[in-house]
């Protein structure tokens, strides 16, 4: 197990190293001179330009620049945003809770809807329900979520006015963030139930939109993994022992069928990021997805550079976590030392 894990970790660290090289090259590959990109399009005196070049180390050899980038990055300094003049790391972690809150809601939605549907579809194989579930999950898989979000807005916000169009909460509640998770902050600030419901209402549409792709994946995965397990001999034995259907499916089959599903859920972080980029743009959600898209349109290279380094390191850490859990949970892996 340790050998397998250490190999995985080395491979993932190499990938992370690659991402830092890509991030480092971005500003140097982009058309135009890096100093102009960093200072914005304003005209600057030749002296200031030279001073900036020296300060930021652009006059040093590339390899020195790269190690400087890594050295500063490890100390939590990933540069300063051109637009807001604030450190990229601060900006990132200020926006992360909004994305995480939305991501957690989206995953909860995907799991609570996807797993029961997947299980029922597998149990009632080849029934109308099974075909319906398979088709719906394929449709969810093919859904352009930016369109899906707008369609939901047209239906629920424009036509029947029951859900808000965008934002995290009604403007009448002016809540200073403490944790950044609004569902918690409303209580900490003592705003009470009406504010909580308002925040929850703002989460419903983006949550559904962001959860659509994970929902489709989880449903498909649960169904196929359940189908595999239901064919096993021990399930037949359990039936033969006279156990109730509920018990056989709910306890004997489900436990084993869940192993691959848990992996998929763990790896859903990547699709949460993709979802965040599109969903936050539709719903004007102040998270990291919209921040990244804006930074690309505004050519704010330090933000793009820092943003992808942090996101890649998070994805890689989650991958390591999933691999470790998988190695611990799965007895077959535990034996191989």
């Amino acid at each position, binding site marked *: 197990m340790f050998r397998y894990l250490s190999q995985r970790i080395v491979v993932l660290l190499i990938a992370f190293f*690659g991402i830092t090289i890509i991030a480092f090259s971005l500003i140097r590959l982009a058309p135009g001179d890096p100093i102009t990109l960093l200072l914005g399009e304003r005209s600057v005196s030749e002296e200031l330009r030279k001073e900036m070049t020296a300060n930021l180390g652009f006059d040093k050899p590339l390899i020195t620049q790269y190690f400087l980038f890594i050295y500063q990055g490890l100390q939590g300094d990933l540069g300063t945003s051109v637009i807001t003049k604030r450190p990229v790391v601060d900006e990132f972690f200020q926006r992360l809770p909004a994305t995480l809150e939305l991501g957690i809601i989206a995953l909860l939605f995907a799991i609570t809807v996807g797993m029961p549907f997947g299980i029922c579809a597998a149990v009632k194989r080849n029934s109308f329900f099974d075909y319906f579930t398979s088709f719906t999950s394929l449709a969810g898989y*093919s859904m*352009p979520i930016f369109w899906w979000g707008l369609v939901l807005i047209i239906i629920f916000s424009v036509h029947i006015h029951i859900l808000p169009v965008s934002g995290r909460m009604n403007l009448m509640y002016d809540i200073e963030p403490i944790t950044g998770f609004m569902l918690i902050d409303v209580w900490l600030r003592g705003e009470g139930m009406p504010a909580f419901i308002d925040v929850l209402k703002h989460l419903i549409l983006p949550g559904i939109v962001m959860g659509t792709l994970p929902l489709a994946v989880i449903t498909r995965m649960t169904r196929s993994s359940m189908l595999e397990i239901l064919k096993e001999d021990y399930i037949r034995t359990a039936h033969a022992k006279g156990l109730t259907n509920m018990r056989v499916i709910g306890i004997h089959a489900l436990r084993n069928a869940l192993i691959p599903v848990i992996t998929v859920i763990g790896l859903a972080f990547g699709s949460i990021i993709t979802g965040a980029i599109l969903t936050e743009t539709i719903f004007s959600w102040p998270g990291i997805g919209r921040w990244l898209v804006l930074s690309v*349109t505004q050519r704010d290279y330090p933000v793009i550079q820092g943003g992808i380094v942090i996101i890649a390191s998070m994805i890689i850490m989650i991958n390591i976590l999933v691999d470790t859990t998988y190695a611990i949970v799965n007895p077959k892996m535990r034996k191989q030392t």
Partner: protein
Amino acid sequence: MNDTTETSSLKEFSLQFIHHKGALLGFIIIAFFMLVALCANLLAPYASDTIFQNAFRLPPFSEYTHNYFILGTDDVGRDLLSRLIYGSRISLGIGFFTVVLSLSIGGILGLAAGYFGGSIDSLIMRINDIIMALPSVLFAIVIISVLGPSLANTIIAVSVAELPHFMRLMRAQVMAEKNKNYVIISRTMGASHLRQMFTTILPNCLAPIIVQSALGFSDAILCAAALGFLGLGAEPPIPEWGTMLSDARPFIESSPILVTLPGLCIFITVLAFNIFGDGLRDTFDPKLKR
């Protein structure tokens, strides 16, 4: 003799394929969109960038100065139907070029990785890991941030982001095939590496690659439309569905049709390719058949 077995297996394949209702449905929809894309200049009532003065956001079935607009016009007075029809060219074109690019580059890299193994394999797989460390839409955005938004750059960015699918699949296939007897025999008979890779092994790896190409089409169209929606894809006035959708967002309340139809086109095309790909996989792989 060889010919007859080949035709009969082809015949069997087509029969199975036709019996697979989903695959057939997907194929029909794809064929329809392809036909529309090929005959766009015959089908479209107007050119995609003809602007009709003062004919802004007309509702469907409206007439204006002797011009008839079946689906109405967009916010600058262009015929929506014509733009949707020409848009099929753009989206299918993006899908086609992306699949060709990532299939050929990813396929060759995967083939080399699987065939040679060792350090070549490690090197290629590490490239693969780097691309996979970021979600594909984000990776494509990163590439666009360097190259700048345009139709050609969309194709490049999406192709790179889609590379891992083909690389990994091809590598796995080649590794499964390369120690089989027929490969060992061709090696003992003195076949060169290139001959072994492309003539001996490659044809036996194609079935899953064809399936992946169909699925790659859908991924590419979806990813490119997402870039267009974010304003990082095709530049106006190119009638790309994702860009059209994003341009129409301010008018979501007054003219929802401008938002709904381009998105519906993306959805149906992507769904058709996914159904088609799934169906192909079922027909190619008898083990998975019900």
